[in-house]
């Protein structure tokens, strides 16, 4: 996307806000024509008068009309974002980062394991894979998604359209159920070993969620026989510039903003554990 100055955002109005959970909202904005991106990439969102923060894009690039960002209320920028209404202005610059290694995923079966808001970057890839123009390039799709409680599951409005499909298995779980919940209860890594009983040949595991979940899910995947290079995850680091310049997302010889945020487990094990 072209703007004058490397760090200058383009101002855009928020088109629609979807309340996902009590602390997560999805913000939909019109996609600028020159905003070309891949699933897994992120963008910097600027809230005038408050600040700027990086967010992964949760919509698929196959959607030409809008961009979506699913954002959890945590810090000052996200708090300000949650106070905004449709029609309010935010700034956007990006896309940044490398995104998922689509070339390597071609022809593979994809196992998505998401936890909490970690489904956001995965959703971009899932919808990309499910789109008619790309569906044939990929094999089976298995999605395991968990959250703390049923009320913390995001994109529930979209699940019916996924469940309808024959080429996708969706499995939901929560750490702690409630009266409205008739589905599975259990931690994602444990449930994974229960529900994913196929041979892992030709499968790629794509994991995103809170650090502790990622850690144990990767452990589970390794036990199930996934090769290190067939496990893909995304890292979260404090970022400011998004361009590999400001230095704070540096881990070993990598800048998470520029070389990541998507990393294979094979790469991850060579990096110092400072994330």
């Amino acid at each position: 996307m072209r703007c004058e100055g490397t760090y200058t955002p383009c101002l855009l109005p928020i088109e629609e806000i979807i309340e996902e959970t009590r602390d997560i909202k999805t913000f939909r904005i019109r996609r600028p024509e020159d905003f070309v991106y891949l699933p897994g990439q992120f963008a910097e969102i600027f809230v005038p008068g408050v600040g700027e923060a990086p967010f992964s894009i949760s919509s698929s690039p196959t959607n030409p009309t809008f961009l979506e960002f699913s954002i959890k209320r945590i810090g000052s920028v996200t708090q300000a974002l949650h106070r905004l209404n449709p029609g309010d202005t935010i700034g956007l610059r990006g896309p940044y980062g490398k995104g998922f290694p689509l070339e390597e995923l071609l022809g593979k079966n994809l196992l998505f394991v998401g936890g909490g808001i970690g489904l956001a970057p995965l959703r971009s890839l899932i919808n990309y894979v499910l789109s008619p123009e790309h569906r044939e390039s990929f094999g089976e799709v298995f999605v395991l998604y968990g959250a703390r409680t049923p009320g913390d599951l995001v994109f529930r409005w979209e699940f019916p359209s996924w469940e309808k499909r024959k080429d996708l298995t969706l499995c939901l779980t929560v750490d702690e159920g409630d009266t409205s919940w008739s589905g599975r209860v259990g931690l994602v890594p444990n449930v994974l070993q229960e529900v994913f009983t196929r041979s892992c040949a030709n499968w790629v595991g794509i994991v995103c969620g809170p650090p502790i979940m990622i850690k144990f899910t990767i452990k589970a995947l390794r036990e199930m026989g996934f090769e290190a290079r067939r496990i893909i995850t995304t890292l979260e680091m404090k970022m400011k510039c998004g361009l590999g310049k400001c230095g704070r997302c540096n881990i070993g010889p990598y800048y998470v903003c520029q070389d990541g945020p998507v990393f294979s487990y094979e790469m991850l094990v060579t990096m110092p554990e400072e994330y």
Partner: protein
Amino acid sequence: MRLSYEGRLVSYEEFLRWLQASKAFATEIVLSRFNIALPSLPTPKSLLLPQREELYHFLWGKREWKVIPLPPASEKVLLLLAPCEAKAVVHVLDEVFLKNAPPDSSYVVRRENLTLLVVGCTFFEATCFCTRVGGHPLSWEGGNCFALPLPFGVYLEGEGPEGRALEPLEKEELEKLVERLAKEALKPLPEKTPEYLYSAFEREVWEEVAWGCLNCGACTFLCPTCFCFDLALEGKLRGAMVRTWDSCMFPKFTLHASSHNPRANPLQRVRQRVLHKFSYFPLRKGKFGCVGCGRCVLACPVNWDIREAVERVVSCAL
């Protein structure tokens, strides 16, 4: 780029006249060697990456937000700097802000307007270690011109005022200087230093190495290669996005909004600073992120010495 010996000699008076005619700045290292009145900079970084730079303004007016990009104001400048500092510009700052796509728009403008006059060093200070990290007191790699203050005048290569060729005796003098510097030079760090350090990431020696450090930012702010910055907003209804130096020594540097901090303890931050310069950056770009100017050694309130730290860890990893 090493000396060609094919340069020319100008008198000090003529050299100073030329400097005054050009809009010349000098870094403090260079100024301590010349007795001339030029506006001084702590490091070349302060010119290329000012500590405070407003990137764009924003304001709320007429019921809408506006963002006003600020074209960087920059004039043509002649900068006198030491070989190590020139290396900091060419090897590190240019690498990060020019070659690492996309280039930083305001850095590009400032860099284009900059002429680098490298002033060779005729001696080593107690803090100097440029030759340890692949530098040389007479190298002018990346510079536009080179000047060497000699007893009988200023030896020049590259752009600059006209002069006369060196007499054989003067040439001999110059060769003697080169020989003396070669003798006094420290030997380079082992070629595999980045790999050694990387493999020593989890060694206990870091505890000993990091012990005395106060975790202030004096070293990083005075370092000519430390480029990390913060983007911090100023103002509410009208204000600016301000770029300002930041330091990996500060606990807030990597603090997530979720309050998770990957480098929460002082040891991790000291290790990050050493490894980023001597391991991570070299592994990525093939050259050290430290140029051996010794500023951090001099500036440290408690005399924490990065030279000793690197040597200590490398010796452990061997």
